[in-house]
């Protein structure tokens, strides 16, 4: 069953490479996405938690991430069909296989119970997404790809070293050397502290680079700015969640080792710094796709802060993971439409999207409200929960700082988004009109966020709670 989850996309890769028909190739993506989602739902229902020795398996965290990533992927896949139709000149011979590979690696990473395997899968996602960023084949996109590749590779290499350190910590502690999560958790108390701490730092930097925590974020604006909207959506929604999952795995080990005293402050610091940087850099951001990248940095910061505080805040952070992924998906897809329509992503050229593209414009504006924590959308709930967690933990000043930074973010982001969506369109005769498949997926994501804002289904609730206990070690 779980193997099928990974093999299904992989099996389609050769098809994609060999299939002669353009549209068929495009339609492979939704097929893979739908099948994947189906399998995921089945698996969530029927597959029990992983056995201790297993290399791949499910636990609440992986269930949560799969539950987020799979629908997101399906949405983007559907979007991709019409998008690729519109960009025939670019061709989809590289796009489709890479996206399929991306899905496979993503699933593997979500399900792997072995840190080495997780690491490998993450690296694969990096490599698979590089060609996606380069989709537009121009100087800027190649530059973005290069930066993304180099910085993430360095990061991931550091993560490798971190893994080795953790292994050595086990060795030094006299525990059986293994990167199996279960073994590490079991060996937690005896792990040698210096090695563990250093390893934690290296792993955090490795996965943090992928997550885009400041100051490891540098590749993000370029990559998100240059990649097509759907790639941006997949990365901001899926890849970051995955990287965050990896960080949570490390946190699990730290919890088992009783080293949260070291782990949490570091995570909190990175989170706050990301918030600060995002807040400052969103001011007067003249390019709305880069602005979205900073917004992604901001939300990664929130996640880090939540886990760095712990308790209720962790619960909020996990909920935020779900909301953020969906909202970001909608935001990036609609932004992609606007970018296509106006053939520019500079605020100076883009005006009146609401009039020019009623659906995409409205989606963009609404998604902005959603992503800045305005009810009735889910992010309002999760942000408020995180804040409650912070204040409950007695971290008054942290809480107030976060609030001030959120306000600043709102000002910066609001200025750009309103400038894009309101007013008289710069040019009325656009070569682009909203198509069903270009509008329906983001709309669906938005509705999902809306639903999460007014009602959290009981199973999801339990899943979040179990996941929290997993991270907090039942504390």
């Amino acid at each position: 069953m779980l193997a099928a989850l990974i093999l299904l996309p992989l099996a389609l890769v050769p098809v994609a490479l060999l299939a002669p028909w353009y549209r068929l190739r495009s339609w492979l993506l939704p097929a893979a996405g739908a099948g994947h989602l189906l399998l995921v739902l089945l698996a969530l229902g029927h597959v029990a938690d992983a056995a201790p020795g297993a290399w791949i398996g499910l636990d609440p965290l992986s269930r949560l991430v799969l539950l987020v990533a799979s629908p997101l992927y399906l949405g983007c896949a559907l979007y991709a069909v019409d998008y690729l139709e519109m960009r025939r000149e670019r061709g989809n011979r590289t796009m489709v296989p890479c996206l399929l590979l991306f899905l496979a690696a993503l699933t593997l990473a979500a399900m792997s119970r072995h840190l080495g395997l997780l690491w490998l899968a993450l690296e694969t996602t990096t490599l698979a997404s590089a060609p996606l960023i380069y989709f537009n084949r121009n100087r800027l996109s190649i530059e973005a790809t290069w930066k993304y590749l180099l910085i993430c590779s360095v990061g991931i290499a550091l993560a490798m070293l971190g893994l080795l350190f953790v292994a050595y910590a086990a060795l030094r502690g006299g525990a059986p050397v293994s990167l199996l999560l279960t073994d590490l958790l079991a060996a937690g108390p005896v792990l040698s502290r210096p090695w563990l701490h250093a390893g934690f730092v290296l792993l955090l930097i490795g996965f943090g680079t992928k997550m885009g925590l400041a100051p490891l974020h540098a590749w993000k604006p370029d990559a998100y700015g240059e990649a097509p909207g759907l790639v941006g959506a997949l990365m901001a929604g899926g890849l970051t969640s995955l990287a965050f999952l990896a960080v949570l795995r490390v946190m699990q080990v730290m919890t088992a080792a009783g080293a949260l005293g070291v782990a949490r402050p570091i995570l909190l610091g990175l989170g706050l710094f990301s918030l600060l940087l995002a807040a400052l850099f969103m001011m007067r951001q003249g390019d709305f796709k880069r602005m979205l990248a900073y917004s992604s940095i901001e939300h990664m910061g929130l996640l880090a802060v939540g886990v760095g505080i712990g308790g209720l805040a962790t619960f909020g952070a996990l909920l935020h993971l779900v909301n953020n992924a969906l909202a970001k998906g909608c935001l990036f897809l609609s932004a992609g439409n606007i970018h296509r329509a106006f053939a520019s992503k500079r605020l100076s050229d883009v005006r009146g999207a609401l009039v020019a593209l009623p659906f995409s414009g409205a989606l963009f504006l609404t998604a902005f409200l959603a992503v800045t924590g305005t009810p009735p959308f889910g992010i309002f709930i999760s942000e408020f929960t995180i804040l409650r967690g912070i204040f409950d933990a007695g971290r008054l000043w942290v809480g107030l700082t976060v609030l001030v930074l959120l306000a600043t973010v709102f000002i910066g982001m609001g200025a750009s988004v309103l400038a894009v969506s309101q007013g008289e369109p710069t040019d009325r005769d656009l070569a682009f009109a909203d198509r069903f498949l270009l509008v329906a997926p983001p709309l669906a994501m938005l509705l999902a966020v809306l639903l999460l804002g007014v009602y959290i289904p009981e199973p999801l609730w339990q899943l979040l709670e179990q996941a929290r206990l997993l991270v907090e070690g039942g504390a």
Partner: protein
Amino acid sequence: MAELSNLCLLLVILVNFFTLGSARLGACIHAVALQGAVLALLPLATHGLNGHTLLLAAGALALKGALIPWLLLRAIREVRIRREMEPLIGFVPTLVLGALATAGAFIFADRLPLIEAHQGGLFIPTSLATLFTGFLLLVSRRKALTQVVGYLVLENGIYIFGILLAEAMPLMVEAGVLLDLLVAVFVMGIVLDQINREFSTLDTEQLSALKD
């Protein structure tokens, strides 16, 4: 056997300094190839001859010693660049920094408790020093190629540390390191190729159009 491994490690450090100091790309790449070859010796030197170590050594030799350097050499032959022109940080400062980094590596390594078997070995400091050297190359050089070289050196540092755990760790992750290195450098090679096609140069100064 420990002397042999320590000898190799000293050699590695020397190569580090050479790469930091030399202005000629070709020389750098050859030096890194040499370093890869030396690293191939290490597992044998530490854990003696067995299937696992042999495989590891072979892999290292093939990738780090032969394949990747060859790719890079081909690349510079194509774009006809010989020297690293005016690095962001001059050669002498880089060397000084490298020396400092190496010293720091030794100090930091002392704080990390080792198991008896590894007492007195130079593994930890060397691997850290190599890591830092790689970073220095990445940070201080302009040419995309040099940065790839830096990435290689960085990976070498990690590899050295990996050897410590060679028998303790399952084969797969080791393979992971090498495989990942291979793929990464391959993709980088492709990207370099594209960059070359777009800009007809590998100077990353050109690659700073995307900024705020």
